[in-house]
């Protein structure tokens, strides 16, 4: 069981990890430029609406049956929520906060680093939390084919072999891990953005 769990954790780590790096970056560019936004937003919404099970076959054709296609799947599942949260965060920044920096002579780089990025951080973190939860629900889909070792693969394969007890155990582990991870991310957010949700 541990071996399987670790394998799944690694896949989620890589997939979500890439989304954590690229999601805020793309979201930032989309939030900054109306041009980039109108060009890419339809694709982002389309991708977000797709069920991962729908395109896993395609990813296997493109990236092989190994871990690479699974990384891609988890990345594609985790990316839209992070990017969209980042965009929402940037749109929600109060104009006077930026004007205050401008009035004290901040250039656009300083406004980005001193105002926009910290203001967006709470939204990026909540996007990461949503994305991680979504990646967990996707891990079974990712591990449908050649998913052993992997907790999702084990749940699927044990089911097809009528080992109901093992399947239930896998489901329990997946569920408990998801809750534990979510709680950890919630605490991390409180640690990193303690000001969030307070006045001003």
């Amino acid at each position: 069981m541990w071996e399987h769990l670790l394998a799944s954790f690694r896949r989620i780590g890589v997939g979500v990890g890439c989304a954590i790096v690229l999601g805020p970056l793309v979201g930032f560019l989309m939030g900054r430029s109306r041009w980039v936004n109108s060009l890419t937003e339809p694709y982002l919404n389309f991708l977000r609406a797709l069920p991962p099970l729908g395109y896993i076959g395609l990813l296997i054709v493109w990236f092989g049956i190994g871990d690479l296609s699974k990384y891609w799947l988890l990345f594609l599942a985790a990316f839209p929520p992070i990017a969209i949260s980042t965009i929402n965060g940037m749109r929600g920044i109060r104009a006077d906060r930026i004007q205050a920096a401008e009035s004290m002579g901040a250039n656009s780089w300083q406004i980005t680093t001193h105002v926009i990025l910290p203001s967006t951080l709470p939204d990026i973190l909540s996007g990461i939390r949503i994305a991680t939860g979504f990646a967990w629900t996707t891990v079974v889909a990712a591990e449908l084919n050649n998913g052993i070792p992997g907790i999702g693969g084990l749940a699927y394969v044990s089911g097809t072999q009528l080992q109901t007890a093992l399947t239930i155990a896998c489901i329990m582990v997946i569920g408990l891990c998801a809750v534990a991870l979510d709680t950890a991310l919630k605490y991390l957010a409180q640690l990193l953005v303690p000001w969030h949700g307070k006045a001003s």
Partner: protein
Amino acid sequence: MIEINQLTKTFTSQDGTPVHALGGVDLTVNDNEFLTLLGPSGCGKTTMLKMIAGLQGWDGGTITIDGKAVTGPGPDRSMVFQNFALLPWATVMDNVCFGLRLRGTERRAREERAQELIEMVGLSGFESKRPGELSGGMQQRVGIARALAVDPQILLMDEPFGAVDEQTRRLLQEELLSIWERNRLTVVFVTHSMEEAVLLGDRVVLMSARPGQISEIVEVPLARPRSSDVGGLERSREYTEITAHLWDQLRSMHSEHRAVEAVR
């Protein structure tokens, strides 16, 4: 000296109709003067303040400060906002230091300067608190300290006490008076309260809406310093007469506006 010449600005509203925010405003603000801008909402007073700050463009006319045209924000001006506009993740100290930090002032020098101002606005002991842990009145003290930290010649205040309760507002007015009596900066102060405009200002500029224009400039003959006896001033005849006069003007603007709306 701030000189505003034939300043015009027209916005386009959502349904495409033009809104004349400013219709040719002429105004001179003298050095070391405390000028209050009073008017109904929509008269363009905040818009004009943001133009002086260099945060907002205009269509026609000029704004010059000591003969130099305003093209953007500058180190000679700083601004205090109605909703404080502090950085919620930064401590009181870091918020007050913000402008100096943007200018690359060395850490020790900026913290020394910030400490002086924190003491001046009565926030000693709160240096490491974040804005979310402070009351509205305390947050605006931080806003004032932040604006003063960069040593501006002109302080632009946009309804700075509009978001705090009445009692806090009165205390802050008195404190602002006593701070101003010490440093005598040029202040342009936007408000919708005639009492506040008269209590603080050397002159009250009364503006009317649609298009935003100056309808009257009222000299306030109340003696300085005013901070020591605010209560006495408020009971004086001049004070009562000027506020009553301003309210008469404002009330007629409001009823005129209602009449215009009714005709539409």
